[in-house]
């Protein structure tokens, strides 16, 4: 188990360095930040000064190795626009995005799994078919347009919730989060619903396929022969066994929730990391773009690792490769 974790961490470091190189080269090609940062009437000498101050006059490989050695010490450079450490800017916005992603994941599970189980138990009923067609449209609704329609209906026409922004955070057990205040939740609800709908559609499909497979297993047939009530079979035997694929998918999708938050945050003017990324791209603020991508990749790697470990903990049949002992 320990050997497995250490080896996975080792792999992750290589992935991080590879991504760092790719990102750095790609971002290096983005426009010339000096021309946007310096005043319009700056002379060539002044432009050169700005370039030198930002370290942009050095060859790209020197910039990359400086970047790597600084990154190893937790320094991802200073934002060209705000003049603050880029990592700090991204991490300041991280809790807002995390709250959004977690609430969306929660909604996806509580809506998607029951609908999927129902569609799996009654595949030919009107309800079951309707849920499946609905899930196809859930896949097809582009998140940004869906967000606009949610704003139009619930914020502009019905005026139930605010159209955007982030509410005042509340306190619970020493943790400060918008999830713990009514105002925070009111602001979060619409973006979270928007972010979750695609995952609801996905979980419906996963839960339905898993339910259909599990329902044919010998232990379910046996449970029925034993005379267990339908409720107990569904709630205990089926639900427990479909949680394995559901958790696998959810683990993989939590990372993409954070990435897709870029779109939702832009539509709802929600001050998370994704909005910061879009603003930074339009302002050519390279250090912030790089910092965003590095933070996101670290989060992805951690989520994948945790999902693998959770998977092993839930399903005793899974043996971690090379781990010797089962989890």
């Amino acid at each position, binding site marked *: 188990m320990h050997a497995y974790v250490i080896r996975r961490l080792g792999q992750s470091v290589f*992935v991080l360095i*590879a991504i760092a190189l790719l*990102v750095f080269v*790609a*971002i290096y*090609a*983005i*426009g010339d930040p000096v021309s946007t940062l310096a005043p319009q009437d700056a002379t060539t000498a002044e432009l050169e000064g700005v370039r030198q101050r930002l370290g942009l006059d050095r060859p790209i490989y020197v910039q990359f190795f400086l970047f790597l050695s600084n990154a190893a010490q937790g320094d991802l450079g200073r934002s060209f626009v705000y003049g603050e450490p880029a990592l700090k800017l991204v991490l300041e916005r991280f809790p807002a995005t995390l709250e959004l992603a977690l609430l969306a994941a929660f909604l996806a599970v509580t809506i998607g799994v029951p609908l999927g189980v129902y569609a799996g138990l009654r*595949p030919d009923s009107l309800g079951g078919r309707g849920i499946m*067609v609905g899930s*196809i*449209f859930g*896949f*097809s*609704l*582009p*998140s*940004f*347009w869906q967000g*606009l*329609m949610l*704003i*139009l209906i619930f914020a*502009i026409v019905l005026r139930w919730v605010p*159209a955007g922004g982030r509410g005042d955070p509340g306190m619970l057990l020493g943790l400060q989060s918008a999830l713990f205040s009514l105002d925070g939740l009111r602001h979060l609800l619409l973006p979270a619903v928007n972010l979750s709908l695609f995952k609801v559609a996905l979980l419906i499909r996963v839960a339905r396929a898993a339910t*259909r497979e599990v329902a044919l297993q010998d232990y379910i047939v046996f449970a029925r022969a034993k005379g267990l009530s339908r409720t107990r079979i569904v709630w205990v035997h089926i639900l427990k066994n479909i949680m394995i694929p559901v958790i696998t998918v959810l683990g993989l999708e939590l*990372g*993409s929730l954070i*990435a*897709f938050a*870029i*779109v939702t945050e*832009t539509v709802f003017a929600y001050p998370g990391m994704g909005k910061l*990324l*879009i603003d930074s*791209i*339009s302002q050519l603020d390279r250090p912030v*773009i790089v910092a965003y*991508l590095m933070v*996101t*990749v670290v989060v*992805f790697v951690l989520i*994948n690792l945790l999902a693998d470990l959770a998977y092993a903990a839930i399903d005793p049949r899974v043996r971690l490769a090379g781990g010797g002992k089962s989890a």
Partner: protein
Amino acid sequence: MSTVDQLPTETAGVEEGESMLRRQVREYFRSPLATAATITVATLILMAFFAPLFVPQNPYDLSQLDIMDGLLPPGESTYSGRVLWLGSDEQGRDIYSAILFGLRTSLTVGFLATAIACMLGTIIGVISAYVGGWVDSFVMRVVDLQLSLPSILVALVLLAAFGRGIDKVIAALVIVQWAYYARTVRAAALVERGAEYVEAARCLMLSNTQIVFRHVLPNCMPPIIVVATAQIAHAIALEATLSFLGAGVPVTQPSLGMLIASGYNYLLSGQYWISTYPGVVLVITVGAINLMGDRLRDVLNPRLAN
């Protein structure tokens, strides 16, 4: 090698393929939902590509626009008395005309990107399966790495680096998509490579190129078609999203996504139609293509069927 084509197994295979194709087509159209989706997609493609025949004005010919007709709600008449069924934008542009022109850009980008990615991914996948060894492991590592990153993030960063433009959007979509085909084709080709007919073809001294292109690839087609259909829908939606975020097609050739983006500010003040109707068309397009893909998967791959 002409004798090869006359071998009984080969001809039998072709005949079998013919009748199977017909059976699959019939099976496909037995679903009313899939039939409706196919008709919808065909209609949309026709209307988009012959857009000038279906619209009252060229929405990007400034001489045909009248600022007096700006921001009219659906159903209102223009200054010159023409009814605008879907309203107009701030420059007096008929939304219905703009939608058809935008759909043309969206469909072009979606189909072109998918076609190029499909070819590229298929070639890489087949080579990977056939050559094996370190080439295969290297290609699969790259595919794994790429598929673990969300497509929206990769495409956004690429476009931030490339800049705006239809060709650049297509390039970014190809880079995002090729890995799906490479993985699918490699898996299918690995199975086919071990099949007896490939062994037989080898015994007949057919060249590797001939075996791959005439025998292995046709048998890999069903999964490729299924993946490609889903990817067209994905490409169209992704392009719309990128254009909405300001990283997609140029302002001179707006796609559906950009039309929606241009109505964003008006939506907040209650002028809903500029963003809403292009979005409805986008959803119908993507949804109908997805429904087709779903049906194709059921028909072409009985093992995956419900």
